[in-house]
C-alpha cells in the first residue's frame, strides 16, 4: 500500500512530537529534580528507592541557605564560610561591572571595525585567542602577579580578567548588529553638524540597542557562571556564587543535597529569566557573521 500525502504528514508529525518530547524529558527531568530536591527534608535526599515527589515538602533548605536559620533543621551543618548574600553581592558587582566595560569598549571597537576597519579581519580573528586559549594556562602566574599588585582577592582583579576574556565575544556580537545599521543615517547626522562621538552616542548605539542588550545579557551569563578564575583569584573576600556553591558541603556529612539545591536554584533562576528574555537575539550573536539573512 502506498502512503498518501496526508498519512505521510501524520507520520512525520508523530515522529516530530515524540522525538521532541523525549528530549523535553531529558532536559526537564534534571531541572525537576534539582527544584524538587530543594524542597525535600534531610531524610529524603539519599533515600532508596529515591523520592520523586516529596510528601512533606519544606522550605527549610531555603531558609537555611538564604536566611541562615539553622534551628529549622534537625542536624547541624557547617556554616563557617557560607555567606550566600555576600557571594550574591560579589557576583552581582563583578558581573555587572565587567560586562558593562566589556560591552562598552567592545561596541565602540566594533563600530570602528565596522566603519573604519580599525582592526583588520586577521586581527579580529586573533582577538578570539583571548577567549579560546584556556584560562588555566595563565592563572597561576596571574595570581602571583595579582598578589604583588594587591589585586588578588579584590573585585577589580576579577573584573579586569573577565573584561579581557569576554571582550572577543563583545566585539564580534556587537559588530554583527552594528553592521546592519545603514551608514546613511550617520551621514545625515553628521551633515546636520553632530560630532563623531555624538553620532555614536545618540544615533548608532540607540539603533543597535536590542543587539547591545542581548550582548550584555549573554556576557552577563558567562561571567556570572565563571568558576575557574573566580576560584583561583579569590580567597575569602570576593567569593562568587559558583565558588560559594562548590564550598557548600557539610563538615561531617559530605554533600548536603537539599541545601546545595536551594542555593543552585537561586543562582540559576536569574539566568534563565534573562535567557528567555533575549532568546531571539542569541542566534545572531553566536553566528559570527556566518548566518546571512
Amino acid at each position, binding site marked *: 500500500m502506498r502512503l498518501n500525502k496526508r498519512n505521510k504528514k501524520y507520520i512525520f*508529525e508523530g515522529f*516530530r512530537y515524540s*522525538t*521532541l518530547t523525549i*528530549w*523535553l524529558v*531529558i*532536559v*526537564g527531568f*534534571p531541572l525537576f*529534580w*534539582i527544584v524538587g*530536591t530543594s524542597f525535600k527534608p534531610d531524610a529524603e535526599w539519599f533515600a532508596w*528507592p*529515591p523520592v520523586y515527589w516529596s510528601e512533606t515538602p519544606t522550605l527549610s533548605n531555603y531558609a537555611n541557605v538564604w536566611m541562615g536559620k539553622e534551628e529549622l533543621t534537625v542536624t547541624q551543618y557547617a556554616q563557617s564560610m557560607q555567606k550566600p548574600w555576600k557571594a550574591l553581592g560579589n557576583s552581582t558587582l563583578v558581573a555587572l561591572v565587567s560586562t558593562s566595560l566589556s560591552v562598552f*569598549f567592545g561596541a*565602540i*571597537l566594533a563600530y*570602528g571595525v565596522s566603519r*573604519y576597519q*580599525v582592526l583588520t579581519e586577521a586581527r579580529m*580573528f586573533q582577538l*578570539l*585567542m583571548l577567549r*579560546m*586559549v*584556556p*584560562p*588555566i*594556562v*595563565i592563572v*597561576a*602566574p*596571574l595570581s*602571583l*602577579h595579582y598578589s604583588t599588585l594587591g589585586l588578588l582577592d579584590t573585585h577589580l582583579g576579577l573584573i579586569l*580578567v573577565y*573584561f*579581557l576574556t569576554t*571582550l572577543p565575544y563583545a566585539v564580534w556580537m556587537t559588530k554583527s548588529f552594528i553592521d546592519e545599521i545603514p551608514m546613511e543615517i550617520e551621514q545625515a547626522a553628521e551633515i546636520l553638524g553632530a560630532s*563623531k562621538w555624538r553620532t555614536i552616542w545618540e544615533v548608532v548605539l540607540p539603533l543597535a540597542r536590542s543587539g547591545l542588550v542581548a550582548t550584555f545579557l549573554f556576557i552577563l551569563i558567562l561571567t556570572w*557562571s565563571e*568558576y*575557574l578564575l573566580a576560584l583561583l583569584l579569590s580567597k575569602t573576600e570576593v567569593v562568587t556564587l*559558583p565558588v560559594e*556553591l*562548590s564550598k557548600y558541603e557539610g563538615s561531617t556529612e559530605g554533600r548536603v543535597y537539599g541545601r*546545595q539545591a536551594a542555593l*543552585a536554584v537561586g543562582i*540559576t533562576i536569574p539566568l*534563565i529569566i534573562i535567557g*528567555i528574555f533575549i532568546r531571539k537575539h*542569541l*542566534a545572531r550573536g*553566536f*553566528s*559570527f*557573521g*556566518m*548566518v546571512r539573512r
Partner: protein
Amino acid sequence: MGSNNLAGTSVNSTREMTRARAIKRFKWITISPIVVIFLVVLMPALILQLYFSFFGWTVYLGSWWDAEFVGFEIFEEVLTDERLGWAVIRSLYFSFGSTVGCFLVGFGLALLMYRPFKGNAFYYIMFIIPMLTVPIVVAYTGEMLLYQNGPINGILSSLLGHDIKVSWLADADIALTTVMIMEIWNWTPFSFIIMIAGLASLPKEPQEAAQILGAGKFRVFFEIQLPLLRPVILLALILRFLEAMAEYPKIWSLFQGGPGSVTETIPVLIYLTTWNYFEISKGAAQSYVVMILMILIVLGAIWVLRREKTNLDQMYK
C-alpha cells in the same frame, strides 16, 4: 575653471587628511584601553610563566626570584611525562565526544523545529534552558541524579524490575563518559541555536528548484542544504570544541581527576601540579606546552573560519 578645480582638489585632500587623522585618533581611543589592560594584567603573567619554566622553583624553595636557572630541564621533564600526554588525549577525547554529541542532537532538533509548528515557542524555550544553567549547578545536579541511590538508577531499576546500582561517578571505566554526557546536556542548546538560525536563513530558491527537477527530500538535504550550511556547521563545531577543551568546573567539582586519574584532563592536571603538588615550575612548563598546542589549534580554527567567511562575503557581495 582650472584654478577652481585646483582649489577643489586641495580642499578635498585636506578634508581627506583630517578624516584620516580622525580615523587614526578614533583607532587609538578605542584600542588603547584594551591594550593597556592587556599589558598590565596578562603580559606580566605570561612573562612570569616563562620565567618559572626556565627557573626551577617550588614553594618550598625560598623566594621565587632567587630560583636557579635550569635551562630546558623542566621542559624536557614535562615533554617526556606520560601523564601530560594522557591528559591531552583525555581532553581531546572529552572535547571531540561532547562536540559531536552536542552537534548531532542540536542539529537533529533544529531540523525538526526550523519550520513553524504548533508548540514551537514552548519547545524552543525549554531546549535553551540547559545552556542558561550555571555549569557548576549542572555538575551537582548530575551528581544528585547519578549517584548510586539516585533517580537514574531508580528509574532503571523499576523499568528492569531488579535493583540497578551503576556507579556512574566512581567507576573508572565510565566516569569520563559520564561527565561528557553532562557536558552534552549543558551545551546542546548552543549547537541547536546556531543550527536553527542557519537552517532558517537558507535561501528557498535552490531547494525549490531541485524539488521541481525531481530531487527527493534526502537529496535536497545532502546536496543542497548541507553544503550551504557548511560555514555554520564548522562554526558550531569549532566554538564548542574550543570551549570544551577548557572545561573545568564539572570535572573538578565532581572528580578532581579521579577515580584514579581517568578524568585528569589538561586543566585538572595543571591545577593539581600547581596547587596540590606545589610544583610551580612544572605547572608553568606544562602551561606553556598546552598554550602552544592550543594556539596551534586555534590558528587552524581561525584559518578555517576565515576561509568560510571570505567565501560568504564574496557570495553576498
